[in-house]
């Protein structure tokens, strides 16, 4: 490898050519502060505008200070990361930023997780010498995301994820000079734009400018209400991430502690979205099998590839960008909504309450799930199937509010009958997981034989687009693809439009690595090792399960027998399937 030698803070270092000063310093244990710079190694997410100038360092012989995040190391370069000049410049940059930043840290949703706040603390800011104009933007509420542009520092990380990573482009820099800010086109509310509510802007925002809608107060109020019963479901990816909020190492599996904590908070029934993930496989898997069989027997009217439909940001994406292809995704509702639909019918009947007296809460690694709960088609007589969706971070807040010592909490089990699950369900939380879970069931049903191996290693991994050929003896070789990031999903949609798509079955998740890095998860501040630890933990949780195929879940078998009838039958079609809308911008052309 072509390497070069340079000196940073009086120590010599050898790095590959092309390495930035920031990276070179990092490998020496020197942490140069950054703000706009953001990189999720190996997950194709980055923002490198070199704009905020917090990372400036002195390069001997260079006239001006160099931004470490975008300046490449040169042979024999002498860098001083903590020279008086660099420190002064850095402080001034931060003070100027803070001079137009609200100082309401105590009430800020990002308090304690804010990179600007940490930087101010690390740099020992005690006063802000600059007094000037203050931005005055109204706070915007959407079903999922709260935007407080007064706290925007124009790092433009959100713009990078929205445009480059998701290919959505709902928010971006507008205006110039002091009024420059990240905003929607024409200052429209997010709901009127092409925003898909993936929330990755929230996940990468260093300050409180972007945060999630907080439902914790509503949940506490309902738990205290003696006139209603409350039930809660927890998504797969939450159990490998929540521990981080309580000082446990990334990748700790805290399933039992979550069940215990939810009971301690006071929910009447503590259930598991993994249960409805297994149900999703029964419905979606049956649909895949049906469509595949028809397609393979020459029926040209059937839409292939079948695409997954559990990710609510992905659903928003095809409704807004590719409504003409909306018959490709499965009609199966997401596990969150399947759970809600069953809870408010089957389970409400079982405990003898009407649907308006049962409050259904979900805990999701996701911000788009909040939007999903508010969809009109998921309401019956005005009451939603899922009343509130909380993020993993909100659950952490609830646990803290309720004085629960999470790290030392003895484990508990989920309640029955919507609590049992399999390994196939837990992997829904990771890219490739829904595909693998579906294959575990579909291949067995198609061949009528028990799978010799259930680990479909070929669909696992963290590359943004992965493809595999899965032989189904006696049926066909299935071409499958797994993608995450909506830009990658767009690639597949364009292939379908062009008639060049060779896949039979495609899984799509919007967030990096799937739900494990969903926008509702604890903030990782660009540390990819955290996401990778969650990834590993999901597969460990799968291996730990005694049953690892959805169709073998006893509670799933029972509910079909007792209530639903057949997968994709009349009752499940009504309760567990949905339809999609054309939400693309249209031109109303007047003569």
């Amino acid at each position, binding site marked *: 490898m072509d390497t070069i030698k340079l000196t940073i803070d009086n120590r010599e270092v050898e790095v590959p050519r092309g390495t930035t000063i920031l990276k070179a310093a990092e490998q020496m244990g020197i942490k140069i502060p950054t703000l706009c710079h953001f990189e999720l190694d190996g997950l194709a997410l980055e923002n490198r505008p070199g704009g905020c100038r917090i990372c400036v360092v002195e390069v001997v012989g260079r006239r001006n200070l160099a931004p470490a995040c975008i300046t490449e190391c040169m042979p024999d370069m002498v860098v001083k990361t903590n020279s008086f000049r660099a420190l002064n410049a850095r402080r001034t940059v931060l003070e100027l930023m803070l001079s137009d930043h609200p100082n309401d840290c105590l009430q800020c949703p990002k308090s304690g997780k804010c990179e600007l706040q940490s930087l101010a603390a690390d740099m020992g800011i005690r006063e802000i010498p600059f007094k000037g104009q203050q931005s005055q933007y109204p706070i915007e509420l959407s079903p999922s995301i709260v935007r407080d542009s007064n706290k925007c520092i124009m790092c433009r990380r959100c713009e990078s994820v929205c445009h480059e990573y998701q290919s959505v*482009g709902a928010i971006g820099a507008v205006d110039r000079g002091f009024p420059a800010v990240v905003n929607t*086109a024409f200052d429209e509310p997010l709901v009127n734009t092409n925003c898909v509510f993936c929330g990755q802007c929230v996940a990468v925002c260093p300050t409180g400018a972007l945060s999630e809608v907080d439902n914790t107060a509503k949940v506490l109020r309902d738990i205290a209400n003696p006139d209603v019963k409350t039930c809660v479901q927890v998504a797969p990816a939450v159990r490998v991430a929540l521990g981080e909020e309580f000082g446990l190492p990334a990748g700790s599996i805290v399933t039992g502690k979550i069940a215990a904590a939810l009971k301690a908070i006071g929910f009447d029934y503590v259930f598991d979205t993994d249960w409805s993930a297994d149900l999703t496989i029964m419905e979606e898997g049956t649909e895949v099998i049906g469509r595949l069989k028809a397609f393979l027997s020459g029926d040209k009217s059937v839409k292939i590839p079948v695409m997954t439909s559990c990710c609510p940001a992905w659903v928003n994406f095809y409704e807004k960008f590719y409504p003409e292809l909306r018959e490709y995704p499965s009609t199966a509702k997401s596990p969150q909504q399947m759970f809600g639909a069953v809870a408010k019918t089957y389970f409400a009947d079982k405990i003898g309450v009407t649907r308006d007296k049962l409050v259904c809460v979900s805990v999701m690694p996701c911000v788009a799930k909040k939007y999903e709960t508010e969809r009109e088609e998921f309401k019956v007589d005005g009451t939603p199937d899922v009343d509130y969706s909380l993020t993993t971070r909100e659950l952490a807040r609830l646990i803290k509010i309720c004085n629960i010592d999470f790290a030392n909490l003895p484990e508990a089990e989920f309640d029955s009958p919507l609590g049992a699950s399999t390994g196939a369900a837990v992997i829904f939380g990771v890219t490739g997981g829904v595909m693998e879970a579906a294959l575990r069931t579909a291949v067995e049903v198609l061949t009528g034989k028990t799978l010799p191996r259930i680990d479909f290693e070929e669909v696992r991994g963290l590359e943004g687009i992965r493809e595999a050929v899965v032989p189904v003896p006696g049926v066909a070789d299935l071409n499958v693809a797994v993608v995450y990031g909506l830009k990658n999903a767009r690639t597949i949609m364009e292939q379908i439009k062009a008639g060049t798509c060779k896949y039979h079955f495609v899984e799509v998740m919007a967030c990096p690595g799937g739900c494990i890095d969903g926008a509702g998860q604890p903030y990782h501040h660009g540390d990819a090792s955290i996401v990778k630890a969650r990834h590993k933990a999901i597969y460990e949780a799968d291996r730990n399960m005694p049953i690892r195929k959805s169709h073998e879940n006893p509670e799933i078998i029972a509910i079909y027998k007792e209530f639903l009838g057949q997968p994709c039958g009349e009752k499940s079609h009504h309760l567990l399937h949905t339809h999609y809308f054309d*939400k*693309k911008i249209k031109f109303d052309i007047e003569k």
Partner: protein
Amino acid sequence: MCGPQIKINEASYRTIKDICASFDNKPGELINILHKTQEHFGYLPEEVQQVVADCLGIPVGRVYGVVSFYSFFTMKPKGKYAISVCLGTACYVKGAEKILDALKSELKISEGGVTEDGKFSLDVLRCVGACGLAPVMTINGKTYGRLVPEHVKEILAEYAD
């Protein structure tokens, strides 16, 4: 439950499509396309930007980002006679602000405004490249130099039609 509807008349729609097509619908030509489009319509209202975005296959936020960034582009219709006062360094030190004040009180509008009858609009800009004539203003491209506030009334009278 359908997506947003953008109302636009057919002639305008065609014109924008033709302008974009004349630049091969290339996103890299956005600024040139906006120049041509503004030349045609006099301004760039929301629906026009939506059509441009649609033709180029880019988010409308990208178009709006550019339109809001450059002071040359405007989302408000200009007056029949568009007045621009230079506030560049040379004009500024030569008293351009007094010229601007005279125009404001004469027309009873502020910067960025249009008179009620739609006749005059008033904007400021930075340097028209005629620093030797400072302070300078332009009306529909015609340059007036070495101004003093007393000139304002008589110049406006030229546009009395």
